[in-house]
């Protein structure tokens, strides 16, 4: 928690001020019963209206002051908590942007989003409440006890004595409750999971006539959820009656001993009334304590999750050399490269060696999971190799500055990512300072210019998040244009022509050839490999064979099998 809350330091002054204001307000309230006692003993008992007016006036003034102070504290507390949240968000987002892909593997995307949004809001609210209520409640209890002792210490003992027991009781219930509610959450997730599966698999369930089976499953889970919820709530609902019982017993004791002392002359009526009043006020505040603890434990979980991100080291070390884009020729060589994802045993790639000369096109084929995409991702240094090295123009690319390395690479991933914005904006992602001419040129190369010109606003057409209103093939070509606009020395295409028809694909491959960049092309289609200088055939992370189409046809039985399965269809394996 320390790391996260150290971001409060900058707002120390405002925080202290907010706390001081809150304490002032608290003091006023704590003195109310005390003043009441004075009024009864010195005013009523002696029939002195002036004393009543005096103390009454003080009471009114105090409450006005408390109100003003409370309003002011709200501003300071809001300032502290909102600025704290702002700083934390900036810091966290900056950290995430510095992450390497290995880091991303250990934090799923959805969890990072939750951390950035819900968790920070949770902390922000805790800080706000902390400055206003959380500290207030325990202080109120302590203050009430102290004031009660000031008023009459012997009577105060009866009321103060019950507090440690109640605190212990609350603590125990809370501990147990936390465990019970966790199991409620698990059961609830289970029920929701079954519900979700049924919604998604509805057709299948109907066709296989499994409705009764599913209802049985659901009913069982739903019943378990109910039992757990009832158990958890029964425990926690016990607390209010118990607190009531104990505190009220204290009040009876105060009345009894108050009378005894009154007769012995060591207590006054006003004092008894004041202490009973302190006791009933404490009773009200007690109910807040558990809410505070619950909130605090949530904040603790949130801060731990945020910290986990903040303390993660960006795992890639940047290199020194920063060659200009124009001086990179684009030769790629893999030298006995082995790669495994962090925290895994099995290598994804083992002992891969090959070389691509500037301007060459290499096709990469292999089954799912054979490591094709991973191989591509090693080139822009999304990950570092476990053994062996990747070199660009003969220099180990770990020695290159990441930015200048990546500036020379055009990468088109398999899963299409478009950003919300216009068509031109999306192409411009590839090169921020690209002119309209350059954008159009890239679009032409990617065979999408004509399609774009048919859009309602041409290059200014807005596409939705993840590009909903474009077809699969259009999206693929747009992502290719994005990579081409930067005129890369190295082009990495990860199976990104699957939704293109044969003619478009052929035109695209021709255009790419003319660009004269080193191209690595992952594909499933024998037809796409026609233009390539060489084919790398991967199997289970190993380089099974490499060579031209004709060479592989002779040497590799697997390649022959692939060719056979796609043959005789005029090159259209996927209609």
């Amino acid at each position, binding site marked *: 928690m320390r790391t996260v809350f150290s971001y409060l330091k900058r707002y120390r002054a405002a925080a202290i001020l907010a706390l001081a204001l809150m304490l002032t307000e608290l003091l006023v309230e704590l003195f109310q019963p005390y003043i009441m006692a004075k009024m009864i003993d010195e005013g009523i008992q002696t029939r002195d209206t002036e004393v009543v007016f005096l103390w009454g006036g003080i009471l009114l003034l105090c409450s006005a002051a408390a109100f003003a102070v409370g*309003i002011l504290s709200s501003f300071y507390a809001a*300032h502290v908590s909102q600025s704290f949240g702002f700083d934390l968000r900036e810091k966290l987002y900056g950290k995430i942007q510095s992450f390497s892909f290995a880091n991303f593997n250990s934090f799923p995307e959805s969890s990072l989003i939750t951390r950035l949004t819900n968790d920070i809001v949770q902390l922000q609210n805790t800080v706000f409440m902390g400055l206003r209520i959380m500290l207030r409640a325990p202080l109120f209890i302590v203050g009430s006890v102290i004031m009660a002792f000031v008023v009459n210490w012997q009577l105060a003992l009866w009321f103060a004595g019950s507090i440690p027991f109640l605190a212990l009781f609350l603590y125990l219930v809370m501990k147990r409750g936390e465990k019970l509610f966790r199991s409620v959450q698990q059961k609830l997730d289970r029920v*929701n999971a079954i519900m979700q599966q049924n919604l998604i698999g509805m057709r299948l369930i109907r066709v296989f006539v499994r409705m009764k089976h599913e209802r049985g499953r659901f009913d069982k889970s739903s019943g378990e959820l109910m039992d757990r919820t009832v158990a958890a709530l029964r425990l926690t609902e016990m607390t209010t009656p118990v607190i009531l*019982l104990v505190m009220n017993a204290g009040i009876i004791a105060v009345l009894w001993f108050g009378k005894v002392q009154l007769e012995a002359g060591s207590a006054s009526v006003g004092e008894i009334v004041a202490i009973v009043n302190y006791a009933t006020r404490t009773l009200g505040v007690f109910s*807040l304590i558990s809410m505070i603890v619950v909130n605090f434990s949530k904040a603790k979980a949130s801060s731990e999750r945020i910290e986990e991100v903040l303390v993660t080291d960006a795992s890639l070390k940047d290199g020194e050399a920063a060659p200009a884009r124009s001086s990179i020729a684009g030769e790629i060589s893999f030298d006995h490269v082995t790669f495994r994802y962090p925290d895994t045993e099995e290598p994804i790639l083992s002992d891969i060696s090959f070389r691509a000369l500037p301007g060459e096109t290499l096709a990469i084929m292999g089954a*799912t999971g054979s490591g094709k995409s991973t191989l591509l991702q090693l080139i822009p240094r999304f990950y570092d190799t476990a053994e062996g090295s990747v070199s660009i123009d003969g220099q180990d690319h770990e020695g290159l500055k990441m930015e200048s390395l990546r500036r020379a690479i055009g990468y088109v991933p398999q899963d299409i990512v478009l950003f919300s914005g216009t068509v031109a904006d999306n192409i411009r992602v590839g090169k921020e300072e690209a002119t309209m001419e350059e954008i159009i040129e890239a679009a032409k190369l990617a065979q999408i210019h004509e399609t774009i010109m048919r859009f309602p606003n041409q290059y200014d057409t807005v596409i939705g998040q993840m590009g909903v209103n474009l077809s699969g093939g259009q999206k693929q070509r747009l992502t290719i244009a994005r990579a081409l606009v930067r005129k890369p020395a190295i082009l990495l295409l990860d199976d990104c022509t699957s939704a293109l028809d044969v003619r478009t694909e052929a035109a695209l491959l021709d255009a790419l050839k003319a660009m004269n960049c080193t191209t690595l092309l992952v594909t499933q289609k024998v037809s796409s490999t026609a233009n390539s200088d060489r084919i790398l055939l991967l199997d289970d992370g190993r380089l099974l064979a490499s060579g031209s189409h004709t060479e592989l046809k002779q040497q590799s039985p697997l390649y022959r099998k692939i060719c056979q399965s796609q043959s005789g269809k005029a090159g259209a394996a996927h209609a």
Partner: protein
Amino acid sequence: MLEPLKEPFRYEPPKALAQGAGDAGKKKQAKAKDASGTLKRIWRYVAYHRTKLAAVFAMIVFSTVLSLLGPYLAGTAIDRFIEERNTGFVPFLLGMAVVYGLHAWTMWLQNIWMIGVAQETVRGMRRDLFAHLHKLPIPFFARRQHGELMSRVTNDIENVSSSLNSSFIQLVSSVLLLVGIVGVMLSLSPLLTLLTFLVIPLMVFGMKWITSRTSRLFREQQRNIGDLNGFVEETLSGQRIIKAFSREEVVTRAFHERNKRIHESGFWAQAISGFIPKLMNGLNNFSFALIVGVGALLVIGGHGVTVGTIMIFAEFSRQFTRPLNDLANQWNTLLSAMAGAERVFQIMDEPVEAADESEAAVLERMEGRVEFRGVSFAYQEGHPILRHISFEAEPGETVAFVGPTGAGKSTIIGLLCRFYEPSAGSIRIDGLPASGIRRDSLRAHMAFVLQDPFLFEGTIRDNIRYGKLDAADEEVEEAAKLANAHSFIMRLPGGYGAKLKPDGGGISQGQKQLIAIARAILADPAILVLDEATSSIDTVTEIKIQEALQRLMKGRTSFVIAHRLNTIQTADRIIVLQDGKVTESGAHDELLVRDGFYSKLVNGQVVLT
């Protein structure tokens, strides 16, 4: 005073982890439209537990009366035994102890009984909703987003559950308490009561002032947060691109701008909403000062007011603003729960699939002869999806449907398994009209292999066994072997016992298809429906799938929504669908010479994505 909560352990409903429960909660502030209707329907569920509820109600009445009696007795004790020194103090204190004890006891009883009622009620709603989902016609699910449906069946029901738990008791007891306090106060001193009432207009005015500002500010803050969420989501899922194209600085700048906007609106929203407890506090303090001051003057002046009365009023005046505040809060929770319940009931009101005809036949065996005669179909009048479709398939034949997206291929399949009924024409199976066969019996002879094969969370074995629930382990393995799935399953850690994650995660798309094929083999249907994957599956797996499919299709009438030319070529009949009409039909060789859509397709001049 702070706003004391009645329930120290406010039950915070655990939010569903799925489907961004975070903002769903905020959106649900919508009010119920037909409040009395919804209330009646909730009542129907609650009414099962009528006796228990009546007991809860009785307990609330008792505990409220007892809670009023407590401070009253304490005040009386001061007046009669401490100031005036009457005798009988001990029995009086014992009486007080009994009242306090009974109060705690009735409160405990009302709580635990209510938990039972609320949870049973919600369980009943869940059960009915779930059963209803199984009766809804399939087009219903096509029209709805899963996320939205999920939020109804999870968050909305949770909402009902938690507010039944807490709001009901609080609402009833707040009203009773309010009435009781006012009654007791009036009987003790009408003048002091009037003073206490002074805070009401101040409170109403103050709350109005605050909420009219905060509702606007919160909306703005919500919008800004939503904006930031969207931005974060997009940039994180596009992280690969941002890194590859070195866009880190650009997005960080854009983030900063959005973050600043949240900071701005968040500050005002939080600061002003923070006035609410301060206002309540201030008013409490104010009325406390008034009551004690004026009360003291009345005691001195001898207007029938005693010190005990002051003490009772000092306590009651605080208790008086609390139920007022509670009422407002609980009323809002209750309204949002009603809106939630209404959304649940909306689903339950959706018309179910038409019942089977009373004389519908149960087929023991099916040969698999299928005939479509002049079948048309429209979801909406005037927007036909299919027009006059006619074709037939003899037992064991393979029919391939080819055509662009939206041509009506899936609709034909849907009609075949009677997810919907044709608006004109007829479908005959083994010579019988399909509408005369019971749905479950019809479907029991069919099996599906869909393009995104749905796998349940559970073991591989369970997933295959879904095709035949009583299949022995050997049968499951036999089916997997025929489906070319056995070898990859054996390589998984745990083999057939390997657990799949929700939505079948952990294995590849192609492997999912193999499992779906194994499932279909185990089901041993007369009619097979196959929707081929459009996404590219790696070649080696593809070969395995093709082999397995050939084994599966052998001897069964098969309908294939085809994306792969090699599947289409081997079909007995190819039906080309365009715009809901059959434009070409025949075998591969026949169609190839016709120079229509099909031959263009084969020559790569059109694509089907």
